[in-house]
């Protein structure tokens, strides 16, 4: 199977010059199209750093290795170019954007991506129709979609809004960073249904999580354990169950 996302010996530091700390340390990973891979790991393993390095956030410096999406060098692109290429990050902590309504924001993003890809902008009626349908699916009312992005939203609402954006933007590859945190059982189910609806043979996903429970709802094809900035163990879905039972220490002890 052709790899969609391919990381080869990727290393990255956080912080300025003398203070720079290596967080990602020779990480290699391949996610083929059509598959969902989970990355699990203890606190401080580098999970969120990995998501920011892949999406191009300032403050992270790649010091070695490569990262490609469908053969294109991600590390050479600005964040917005990576997004237009089809890379989407569901943020662990979605950011509030006062004064910019959800609908305005998503439409601006969608059209910016389309313009960058040389496609036509979405028409207003098509956009409204699509956002209503997906909003209903995720229990987001029309009133909520008119409010400023994430402002005054509960933790669970913010996460549902991340999935809403993902479903609207239809990325080629999605990274979900701790999407389960802050969700109650019902919201978890709603979010997982949304993610599962996007699974298809053309799309890859990387689900970063601390706990097994999200993986009960979003069944991964592969599970990787990230510790000390690299993948130290890879297995099938049963690996997540073992981690839950034996803890990271148990599994890591065996790997070391």
């Amino acid at each position: 199977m052709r790899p969609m996302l391919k990381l080869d010996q990727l290393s990255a530091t956080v912080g300025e010059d003398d203070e720079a700390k290596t967080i990602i340390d020779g990480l290699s990973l391949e996610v083929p199209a059509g598959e969902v891979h989970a990355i699990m790991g203890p606190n401080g393993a580098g999970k969120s750093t990995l998501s920011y390095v892949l999406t191009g956030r300032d403050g992270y410096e790649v010091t070695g290795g490569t990262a490609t999406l469908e053969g294109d060098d991600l590390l050479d692109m600005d964040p917005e170019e990576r997004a237009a290429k089809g890379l989407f990050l569901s943020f662990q902590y979605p950011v509030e954007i006062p004064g910019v309504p959800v609908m305005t924001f998503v439409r601006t993003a969608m059209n910016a991506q389309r313009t960058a890809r040389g496609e036509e902008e979405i028409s207003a009626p098509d956009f409204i129709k699509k956002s209503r349908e997906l909003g209903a699916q995720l229990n987001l009312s029309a009133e909520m979609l008119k409010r400023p992005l994430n402002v005054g939203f509960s933790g669970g609402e913010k996460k549902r809004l991340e999935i809403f954006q993902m479903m609207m933007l239809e990325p080629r590859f999605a990274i979900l960073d701790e999407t389960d945190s802050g969700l109650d059982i019902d919201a978890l189910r709603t979010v997982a249904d949304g993610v599962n609806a996007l699974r298809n043979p053309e799309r890859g996903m990387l689900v970063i999580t601390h706990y097994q429970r999200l993986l009960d709802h979003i069944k991964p094809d592969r599970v990787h354990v990230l510790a000390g900035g690299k993948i130290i163990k890879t297995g099938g879905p049963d690996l997540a169950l073992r981690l839950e039972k034996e803890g990271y220490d148990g599994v890591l002890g065996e790997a070391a």
Partner: protein
Amino acid sequence: MALSVSDLKDKFRNPGPAELELIARYAMLPESAQRERAFEAFAETGLPHRRMEAWKWTDFKSAIKAVEAPSKAAQCAPLPAAEHVIEFAGSKVSLPDTLPAGIELHERADAQALGGAETVPLGAMTAALSGRVGGLGTLIIEVAGETSAPLHIVTKGDRDETNFARVAVIVRPGASLDLIESHVGGAGFSSFLIEIGMQDGGEVRRTVLQRGSGDEAQALTAIINLGAKSEYTQTALAFGAKVARLETRLTHRESESHATLNGAYLCAKGFHADFTSHVLHGAPSSVTRQVTKGAVLDGGTGVFQGKFLVPRTIGQHTDADMQHQALLLEDGAEVFAKPELEIYADDVECAHGNTSGALDPNQLFYMRQRGIPEAQARALLTEAFVAEALEGANEGVREAMLDAARSFLTETVR
């Protein structure tokens, strides 16, 4: 000539070439006691300059080296309110053929009694010089009922040296006025003075656009007096000029009046916009709300000076809030702020806040991750930031104000 220029000159300390020209113009105007009082007040200071505390960041004297025409006519269209337009263009004034119901205009050759304009140097100057030989000195707008449509005042030069205009507004009890103003420059030195006297239960909404070019000086001075239970809402958008000042002096004269003074400034390189206000709570149980927002680029300057004065007995039960927030969009942007609360009454609610900073990198990254290019993300965030201050604008022109802000930001924010 009844007035001797050299006698007049002696009233000024070290008049510069621009002041000498203004003195000569004053000498040409018909004599009037009121005008003379205004001129005397102006002579006290001359063109205001940086050694005066209230003008330390906004120096008209050094900005106006000489009274001369700007290199270009007005570049910006007035707000889209085409009915009932009063236009001051250099030496010409055009009045509308029809007026909204409830409004009457009175033209006066000489200046009427001042509503306190002599306390502001450029207000006094405008009162002294707004007259045209044999023409209109002060336009009085009398509002006697609930007006049916907005009245639009435009000041717009056609490469004139100066454009001085003075308007007095009298709002009768229970009457209401929707006033739109477009001050789009086109003169080397434009100065507009408006005095609004509101009687009990009156309502005024004033929506202002200011936009000059980089070689013009512009002053907008407003003197507002509020009667009992009257309501005044001011919303201004300023792009500045070489030097521009929007000064508002407002007095709650009677109890339970309500004032909102909101504004936004957007300053590019070489542009300077100053929002200065002075609010006197001269009667109990009055309310003031003030939100000023600004965004400034490298080489631009924003100034906010706000003062609430609440005297001991008459200011009881004042409820007042002043907020100023500025975005420094690039290194080299300058914002000067001086918020002041001077409170002597002991049973009041007064608050103020003042912040300045850059755009939030977390917000920028979030937007870029969604595919919005950096320049567009910066413009969108800045527009959203200033939009709050423009919510109270006349709804017929608010979208045009936001469009002006948006295109400014899209074209200049990088």
